[in-house]
């Protein structure tokens, strides 16, 4: 059913999303999968996007007075607030820093909005703020403005953080899926799956023998080092919600290409593999907070790889796939013992298996 909007001059908004009576937001609408896409494509983009390419991604680049600025915003509702390898504070800083870096920008300034629940311990807030400070110093950004709101007890989940950030994009830099070409190599900056498993084990008290720490880290420096290769960097993407597979499928679909994934070369640490096997999760779809892929032409792949391997946590950086002409078999293809398989979007978040 399409609801006509009330008469607002210059704002012809008609919602094309079929809203069934009684339909309500489900958690999967925020899971980064198909439902999230439907919400964005069916509701947000028709309302706000002036051109088809707007609001397709986590950051935008605008030109103001001759300068190219990247702008991004993100909200953090992670539970638990403190987890092995990070906390909501470092996550909120690094997440927005990384969204800017993926625009090919040098991240510069952040804002932070804190929504606190009545009764939240000040000591915990102090820890989070200190963590944000350290993360900002490490990422080379400054937090220059912010906002605080307190909601009644029971109306929040302790603490939510929203950060926005701006960065500057050098004139010669042009990264985006539209620049991805058949023949490009796909480089991965390190091992995958740690953040999602760390959060899940902290949240559910799974108590694995080996502590798995989140990979939460700023990517600005690695990206800046890569961008010294200039126009050879075709596309960058961090591997957050939905993991490596979702990121690659999105890029392949936008670029109208097929990516052939060499699954065996994707670095996954033994504890993460073990945990994923036990829980019945596919590491390719598990979230990361400090990993990204870079698309470069084959001629630049060795150079780019050397740069990545020289960066912090980059020892395991490797080539994991190749871009090909679009194939009817799918956007992302992996080899299996008996042939090949197409990887698709997951519907919601991966849920642990029963037995």
């Amino acid at each position, binding site marked *: 059913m399409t609801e006509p909007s009330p008469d607002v001059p210059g704002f012809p908004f008609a919602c094309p999303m079929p809203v069934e009576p009684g339909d309500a937001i489900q958690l999967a609408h925020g899971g980064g999968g198909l439902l999230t896409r439907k919400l964005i494509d069916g509701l947000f983009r028709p309302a706000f996007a002036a051109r088809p390419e707007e609001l397709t991604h986590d950051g*935008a680049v605008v030109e103001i007075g001759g300068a190219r600025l990247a702008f991004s915003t993100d909200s953090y509702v992670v539970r638990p607030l403190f987890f092995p390898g990070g906390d909501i504070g470092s996550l909120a800083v690094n997440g927005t820093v990384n969204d800017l870096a993926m625009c090919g920008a040098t991240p510069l300034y952040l804002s932070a909005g804190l929504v606190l629940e009545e009764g939240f311990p000040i000591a915990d807030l102090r820890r989070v703020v200190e963590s944000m400070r350290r993360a900002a110093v490490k990422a080379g950004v400054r937090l220059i403005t912010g906002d605080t709101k307190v909601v009644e007890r029971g109306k929040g989940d302790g603490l939510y953080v929203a950060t926005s950030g701006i960065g500057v994009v050098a004139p010669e830099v042009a990264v985006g899926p539209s620049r991805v070409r058949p023949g490009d190599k796909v480089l991965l900056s390190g091992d995958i799956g740690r953040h999602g498993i760390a959060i899940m084990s902290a949240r559910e008290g799974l108590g694995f023998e080996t502590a798995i720490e989140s990979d939460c880290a700023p990517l600005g420096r690695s990206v800046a080092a890569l961008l010294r290769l200039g126009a050879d960097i075709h596309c960058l993407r961090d591997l957050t919600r939905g993991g490596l597979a979702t990121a690659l499928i999105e890029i392949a679909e936008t670029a109208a290409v097929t990516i052939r994934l060499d699954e065996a070369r994707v670095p996954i640490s033994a504890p993460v593999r073990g945990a994923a096997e036990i829980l019945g999760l596919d590491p390719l779809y598990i979230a990361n907070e400090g990993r990204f892929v870079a698309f470069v032409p084959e001629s630049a792949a060795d150079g780019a790889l050397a740069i990545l391997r020289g960066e912090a946590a980059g020892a395991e950086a490797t080539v994991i796939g190749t871009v090909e002409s679009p194939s009817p078999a799918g956007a992302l293809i992996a080899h299996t*013992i*008996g042939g090949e398989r197409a990887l698709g979007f997951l519907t919601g978040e991966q849920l642990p298996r029963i037995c």
Partner: protein
Amino acid sequence: MKYVDEFRDGDAARRYAAAIARITTRPWTLMEICGGQTHSILRHGLDRLLPEGVALLHGPGCPVCVTSEEAVDRAIAIATEPGVVFCSFGDMLRVPGTNTSLLGAKSRGADVRMVYSPLDALDLARRHPDREIVFFAIGFETTAPATAMAVAQAERDGIRNFSLLVSHVLVPPAIAALLSAPDNRVQGFLAAGHVCTVMGYRDYQPLAARYQVPIVVTGFEPLDLLQGIYLCIRQLEEGRAEVQNQYSRSVRLDGNRAARELIALVFTVQPQHWRGLGEIAESGLGLAPRYRRFDALTRFAKIGLPPTSPNECIAGEILRGRKTPDACPAFGTRCTPERPLGATMVSSEGACAAYYRYRRRAAAEPTTPSISETCR
């Protein structure tokens, strides 16, 4: 990774496939019982390695898929009762009942929580004595011991605000039901390695003898499955019908004695309604009389259920091995993991979900327009 990599070796898999081809002289139809096996077969493309004429049918061994619609409706009704915290394995949350799913109920305000173990639900009951904690106890012999443990501990600790909606099912009676069907096509079974890890495989011996079918207790990795298929076809080719244990690194003849004793203590065997298969005698577990006070059926005896409506889902045909998911007219169109018509499209062990994930043509996927000046 030990116990994984060596069982996923592509060269070894192809050698096994060649060995299967060498001993196969005519068409054979096998069924893998467990949904985990189905997913492994499709994920690794093992069915494509088999000689022509060897068919794998996907069995009813997905705990979520065989849980009856009525049980799901009852779960949703209980979850919506005031004061209730309804706990379930994650996989079960998306399964459609008549009108909605547990996740749908949650989005409308029901307190539905995902747990990894019934013991986590029991722990919630300890921490929230003012709430009524209900655990949706589903699954085969694999999950039954943990349910039994939670019930035994609840009794031991005198916990009153904890109950279970029990819908546990047993594999051997389902195999017997499939084999008794007049149109049965299955000539050999790959039994589920995890179920047999708990229960052993003594119960399968009378089935093999009575119905003259080979049953091979099989693991879940590619080489396990190919070896299971090899052993099963070798028996068929030689005219034997025995129980063999391929998954010997995990399964013993008598299984896990402690787990079996706990199951025997807490549960009684009873008839059970299977989604798609109907009622099968002695195929379910209910709480033994001593533990009835933990039964959510008694505690919430007065709740009403929605009237059931006809559904075009052919899960019953699929769970019986009569049809494959891609033969369903609704597959991938009116029925997707997002808007499933039946549980087989939802569960991580469901056959339809496996086909959707590993065998669907991606050509129909919409592509987003290409973009210029955006970052991602």
